């Protein structure tokens, strides 16, 4: 540290800085700035309108960046909640089946989606998979005494809460024995608990699904408190209400075929598994494993009746789209700052013309060209700087207002206001140079003669 300070080049710089910090220089600068502020103040409205371009530019950049940053953060949070080590494979009803089902009145029997064999193959062929959590998701009416609620019944395995980083508020998740014994036990989500048991403790109570009773052994954490996003983007079980029962029980009680009354007649839908969470040991390999799974499923299925989601890839995408947003914000900001700069140049040129006589007087009294350039340049920088400052304040306020009234997440980073402000000050210098130099190059005699 000390060595660096003693370097001659560094000393020379210090010497220069010291020279310019001398009272004389400082007073001169302050005086010139004062004169600048006075003449800006003398044309209050005009100066304000001039600065508006810069204000809007700076405010736009900061608030746009804040919104895009917030959106990307939120998206990343959501995808992270799906688990960055997870790959989610889902059954998807193919579009071809959807379309053909409509016309004839015969009972339709369709079959699609993931099978146990798919999952087994995946688990056995790909190394590095630590766990597979399959689920069946069936929409059912759930009753308790007089109340009922339509909810997703999720038949799954014991590791589901861990894989989703989803914790229990009360009680416990079902055990391996309960799973093996196909017991009628249920873990309900907080929303279901509130709907069916508004006054009482649901633990130990029973609920009825399709004429069977299930014993409630646990209640999940409300979603807001768990690490799960508000709406699970890209997840099939997006319904807020959920009941978890052992997969074995679900298979036993509901079978694999769903019969429902469609507009075209009776429709039978056979789906073995609706979803499977595949956990990969090493995060580095998640995307590669995702691709292999895709290939395996492609080979095993005639139709594309499945979807593979890799949250990690989605996080990457969110990051990329945030970058894209930032580039767009930067471009818009660049344009509005350019327009603002032209505004400043315009007003500085007008100011120079108006103050031709003042320039002549100053030159007669001993001002060098350099002094005149300095004076108008300082004025331009004050204009753009004040504009930038107002812009920063507004740019920070807008995201706050957006957060309060629209509930969007916005994040104002430290760099955005700093960057926007420095660019605005720089604009003042760049667009102030030409008017300042033209002021300095006026002939003193002509300038003094100016009316």
């Amino acid at each position, binding site marked *: 540290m000390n060595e660096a300070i003693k370097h001659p080049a560094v000393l020379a710089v210090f010497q220069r800085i010291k020279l310019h910090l001398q009272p004389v220089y400082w007073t001169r600068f302050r005086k010139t700035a004062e004169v600048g502020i006075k003449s800006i103040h003398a044309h209050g409205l005009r100066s304000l309108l001039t600065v508006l371009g810069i204000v809007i530019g700076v405010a736009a950049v900061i608030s746009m960046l804040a919104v895009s940053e917030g959106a990307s953060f939120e998206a990343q949070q959501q995808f992270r909640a799906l688990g960055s080590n997870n790959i989610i494979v889902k059954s998807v009803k193919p579009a071809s089946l959807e379309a053909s089902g409509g016309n004839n009145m015969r009972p339709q029997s369709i079959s699609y989606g993931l099978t146990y064999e798919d999952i087994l193959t995946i688990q056995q062929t790909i190394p590095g998979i630590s766990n597979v959590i399959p689920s069946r998701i069936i929409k059912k009416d759930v009753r308790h005494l007089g109340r009922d609620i339509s909810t997703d019944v999720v038949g799954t395995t014991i590791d589901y809460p861990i894989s989703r980083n989803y914790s229990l508020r009360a009680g416990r998740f079902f055990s391996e024995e309960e799973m093996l014994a196909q017991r009628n036990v249920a873990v309900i989500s907080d929303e279901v608990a509130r709907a069916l048991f508004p006054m009482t403790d649901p633990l130990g109570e029973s609920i009825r699904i399709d004429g069977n009773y299930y014993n409630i052994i646990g209640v999940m954490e409300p979603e807001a408190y768990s690490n799960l996003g508000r709406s699970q983007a890209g997840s099939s079980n997006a319904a807020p209400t959920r009941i978890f029962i052992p997969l074995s029980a679900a298979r036993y009680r509901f079978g694999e075929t769903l019969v429902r009354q469609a507009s075209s007649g009776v429709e039978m839908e056979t789906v073995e598994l609706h979803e499977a969470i595949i956990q990969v040991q090493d995060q580095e390999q998640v995307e590669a494993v995702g691709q292999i799974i895709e290939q395996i499923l492609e080979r095993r299925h005639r139709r594309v009746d499945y979807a593979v989601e890799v949250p990690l890839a989605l996080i990457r995408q969110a990051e990329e789209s945030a970058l894209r947003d930032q580039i767009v914000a930067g471009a818009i900001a660049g344009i509005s700052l350019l327009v603002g700069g032209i505004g400043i140049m315009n007003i500085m040129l007008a100011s120079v013309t108006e103050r031709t006589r003042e320039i002549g007087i100053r*030159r*007669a*009294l*001993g001002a060098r*060209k350099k002094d005149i350039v300095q004076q108008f340049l300082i004025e331009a920088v004050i204009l753009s700087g004040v504009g930038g400052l107002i812009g920063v304040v507004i740019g920070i306020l807008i995201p706050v207002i957006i957060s309060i009234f629209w509930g969007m997440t916005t994040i104002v980073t430290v760099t955005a206001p700093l960057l926007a402000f420095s660019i605005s000050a720089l604009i003042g210098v760049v667009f102030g140079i030409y008017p300042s130099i033209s002021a300095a190059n006026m002939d003193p*005699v002509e300038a*003094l003669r100016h009316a």
Partner: protein
Amino acid sequence: MSMQTLSMGNDRLVQAVVARQTVASVQDITKTYHMGELAVQVLHGISLDFYHGDYISIMGPSGCGKSTLMNILGCLDQPTSGRYFLGDKDTSQMNDNELSAIRGARLGFIFQSYNLIPQLTVLENIELPLFYQGHPAEESRHIATELAARVGLGDRLEHRPFELSGGQQQRVAIARALSNDPLIILADEPTGNLDSKSGAEILNLFDELHQQGKTLIMVTHSDELAERSQRQIRLRDGRVESDERSH
């Protein structure tokens, strides 16, 4: 900066010792303006010496070249040929920066239309030449306050020019012209915009300055004004027509 102060100090020393010190001298200067293809010669070889403590008026009909001569004397313009010495310095070869410096250090200007800067207060206007000389702020303030009192505006320090009468504004301009203790004070029709009473006050102030040993050069076309000066130079068609001494 220190070099300049030193030489200024020397000048003053020399001025005190030698009574008839030449403060400025123009030697065979000409000035030609080019307007497109047309060349107009305004000054046709003027040679004049100006002495310390003199009170000089330059007269002549309009178009005789007196404004051009004043601009050259004020280092606002340069002669096409010939030499102009201000103190010990030849200004005819100076560049823009040097001319600015010498204007700020050795010349005081008084204009017909006062030419005060409207945004600045009386005090700030008076300080302006010192500001460009890089004078310390406190000292400048002190000098300006003193000069304002001397021209009778001690109670108007924080006023703006538009709050003052014409005569008062011209007195501010005089104080400003004195602030850098110039070799020569150049006045261009100083009473041209004033009523006779204010005009008389300004002329009295000039007499006072003259008695204090200041060198004054005044452009006027009024004989009455010229009467009060010691030396009357008449120009006609860019040449010196007469050069008389009355006192």
